[in-house]
């Protein structure tokens, strides 16, 4: 029986059709400093040992092997959920990307894990309205990162409602604020004046 904890997710992965990384995030509770202590201790002993000692959550080499093996195990199997290396993993494979949500242990509630997974998936689908594929994800990489950040915060599920997650993700500015449309109506002039005023204040604040 594990003690109740909010830390239920250990990583979120987006891999491409060959099992290479597109997006990966391994969650570490920020102040459970076990790994960093080991790292500090070993920095004096050379890097090799560090590599050997740190776990999956921080060790890049182990992560890559984990991802490759996971991909091999799940590619074209259409199973939705598997137990892999003592973790429950929910996944979905699209044409050229696969999404994976990795639980932190075997005790996790599968239904909640599925809800979390679906939430992120829905959010991504809403954001990338051209469909979930590799190109689209890479083109809107910032938004995907934000969406996942809004769903899981270092292992704690923040939100599972896809629309809520998506609504919190800002789209990139389409134009630089310097290129503002100048509208010569009274309202436009007023807004231009307001803009100039705010710009000036900003400059002054920056100490120019």
């Amino acid at each position: 029986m594990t003690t109740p904890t909010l830390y239920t997710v250990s990583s979120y992965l987006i891999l491409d059709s060959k099992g290479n990384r597109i997006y990966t995030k391994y969650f570490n509770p920020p102040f459970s400093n076990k790994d960093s202590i080991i790292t500090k201790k070993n920095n004096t002993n050379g890097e090799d040992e560090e590599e050997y000692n740190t776990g999956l959550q921080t060790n890049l080499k182990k992560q890559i092997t984990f991802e490759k093996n996971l991909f091999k195990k799940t590619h074209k199997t259409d199973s939705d959920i598997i137990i892999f290396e003592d973790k429950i993993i929910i996944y979905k494979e699209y044409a050229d990307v696969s999404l994976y949500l990795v639980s932190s242990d075997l005790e996790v509630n599968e239904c909640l894990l599925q809800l979390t997974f679906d939430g992120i998936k829905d959010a991504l689908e809403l954001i990338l309205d051209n469909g979930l594929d590799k190109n689209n994800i890479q083109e809107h990489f910032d938004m995907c990162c934000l969406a996942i950040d809004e769903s899981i915060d270092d292992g704690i599920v923040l939100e599972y409602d896809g629309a809520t997650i998506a609504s919190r993700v800002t789209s990139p500015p389409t134009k630089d604020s310097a290129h503002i449309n100048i509208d010569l109506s009274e309202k436009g002039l007023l807004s231009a004046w307001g803009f100039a005023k705010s710009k000036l204040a900003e400059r002054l604040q920056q100490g120019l």
Partner: protein
Amino acid sequence: MSAYKKKNENDISSSSSGSEVPDKMSIYQDCLKTFNESPISPKKCRLLLAKLLNILTLEGYKKSFTTSEATTLFFSVSKLFQHQNNDSLRQMVYLVIKELSSISEDTLMVTSSIMKDIQSGDNLIKPNAVRTLTRVLDETTAFSAERLFKNCIVSPDSSVCSASLVSSYHVLPIAETTVKRYGTEAMQAIFTPKKVSTYNNNSSSSSSNNNGDEGGSKFYPQSSYMSEYHAFGLTYKLKNNDKIALMKLIQNDFNSLKNQFLKVEWIKVVGELIYKDSSLFSNFEQLLYNGLYQSYEAVKLEIAKLITTLIVDNIAPVNDQLFGSVLEVLKQFLVVPRTSTRFASVRLLNKLAMVAPTKISVCNPELESLINDKNRNISTFAITTLLKTGNSSNIASLISTINKFTHDVSDDFKIIIVDAIRTLSIKFPNEWNVILQFLIDSLKNSDGGIKFKNSVVDCLIDLVQFVPSSKESALENLCDFIEDCEYSEVLVRVLHILGDYGPTASKPSLYVRHIYNRVTLENSIIRSAAVVALSKFVIINGGNNASADPTLAKNIISLLENIKENDVDDEVRDRSAVALECIKENHPDLIKSSKTFDLSVLESKLTQYVTNHEFDSPFDTSSVPQYSEDERRALELKRKQDEINDKNSGDFSSAGKKSKKTDASTKNNGSLGASSSNTTFEQRAKIIHEYTEKLYEASIIPSDGSSKFGKLLNSCGPVPLTEPESEFVISAIKHIFQNYIVLQYNIENTLTDSAVENVQVEVNTNTNKTSNLVFDSSTIIDQLMPGANEQCYAIFEKTSESIKEEEFSNILTFVTKEIDPATQQPFAGDEGFDDEYEFDPLLLTCGDYLQPLFTADFRQDLSKLSFGDSCVYNIKENITLQQAVDKIVLNTNCLPLENTQFIMDESEKHILKLFGKSCLNDDIKIGILIKMIKSSKGIALKAEARSNDQELCSDLVNSLI
């Protein structure tokens, strides 16, 4: 400017189309340059930040930038804080700062900028700011965030509140006191519904994506009340050690909660409370029962999980009504379209199947339909669960059901099935013919690779070994199989089995014919294996025993002669020559040895021998225990039974996990004194072996075995002699030598502030009768620091060979010295004070003189033993039948046969069959039949023992418990 922008756009397309990693250093330079521009271009900045994130993802945090590079980056990113009123950029800045804070130094410098945003920023940015703030705080600055966090928790906005609660949760390890100060607000947040804001999430520039959707979001978020879940999680952590406060919290109305994450967490806390105090279960029964009829799948599942673990770990008695409802829920889950739910349900059923197989059988139709589920995990769980629900009456139909489904599945999966069948064959030895038929069918079936065939042969070997009645039929079928088997490796194994078991079968000539066929038809590897098998027939049949068939032996010898003359292969001719020579010179042991070494001990001794470079003296095999055929089988059967048990109790999982578990529990046993019923036989054997090594290391007895002690006959234990939480945790192992008895006390000092010195155990025999043990000597532990773990020994000489029960009273004497917290050593000059500590007496019973022994036919062997005795016990303690069985098995050291060490289905009656032999004399055997009935008054036992040694027989029945 426009040219620059163009270049950037090219960058995107190149990075998105190709798999090439964007050039790290050029982006690094770009970042420094662009972020310091004035005015900055938000669009370009956000693009660069995205690329930065991409690099961090692809190259890993530790590898992408050095600390100084990261710090420089961090600093220039923080410049972007000066750019106000652009949420789109700001959100990205926060994300990057969060990521960089783990590799950069001096992260504190952005604290004030972030705090300013939390105070005055809009609701879109606030949560991001709060969550980022946690990453730049440390032990010394965490307190400064108290007011901000508190304000955010009471905010009506769900995201802001969640962000603050989650951040508080993160900082708990470094700032629990700070967080405690707003614990009340956190608790109130559990029951305060918050709303979700809609944002104009397109920054300051006009919206282009949001076609005409003025100011609002294009999505329609619904409140999911997640902040209540986070508030509950935080409150639980803060009240973790306060049972009354938790109870009060849990008393709130469960049904009014809206968030399913919260409800699940709620159930988990209920479970935690029940685990700590099982008497609370009745308080929550109604809550759990009602919860099963709620609409959320996740909640129902969590309750089912909780009840399953309560049943499996035997924490609290679950009434039939509740159990029935759980099964109903799980049964419904088995047919839902959502894979994860089916998966969760079948996983739980698999666990339940081990404790209550008959009750699970109501789900059998659904389970059967899952056998060819597209998810391999589900189908595997379904099959293993089904097989666990098997009992002697439905095995046949189960196997035929499985048979129907297994044709179009992969080999890996078939191996899992065969493994499951193998456990069945050990569990239900009487159903061997159905199982054998299944195995033979799958063996002869043309599909399946070598791994699969090998596992089937493994299973058949088990069947032949442990279910003697199946032997003849299994061997005959194996003979048929080798007529057309395409894998040499498998063929060689089969020949080996035939050689081992064929000679004692009723018609050995049949096997000889099949084996000789191989000699004429197959390659040299198989031919040489066949030669060895043939020679075994000669050894058995050429001897003087009753079943010997001299004509057969003579015939085989002429066959071997023939092979020796005519075979084309050197190895085959050599082997036949060696075999013939051994037969002629009468060295049967060279072909078929009657004893085998304990391989793990042999291995460790050999490694020791090689690493110590003691090549002057030859390796001494006498210190390695040897087993006769029956003993070896007893050990193997015990190991396999434990394996089944082990597999049942946990999830089926990777081998890695299993070994980890073993390690953990070994450690546990070493230090805490095992709670023996939970450890498997193999683990116990390992622990005993480790301690025996220590015995030699401590040079209490010389390891060459030639000393006055005589041979080590048996080691038993460890027996815990104290409560696991007392100031000294002590367990003992009894080593029985030919002439001596050595008691090994394993003492752990659990005090944190004092060391003890001159530690000695005062041991006295308190048998009233004249004891046949004379105290010889004991050892002293010089110093035992806090947390340390050492052994001390008491040695007794035996005055006669015969077995007598002994009770040793134990008093620990020692000198306590306080520890100087500065040096972690006792204060210099502190003389300490003498103290003593009395702990439980240690019993030496005749069970300690016994070793497990396998027998194929318990009833028949029992009738061969001439002396009998019986005894009746009445156990008043409130223990379950299983606990009683575990205790008896442990006390008697005998081998439980026919799977009688497991109680099926909480039944009230049980028959336990045990068999063993004396370690003093291999010919003294003992069998015990124990009938047990559980009633409200306790457990009544009737034990009948038969042995060829009258004294042992009566001693044992009288010391069962």
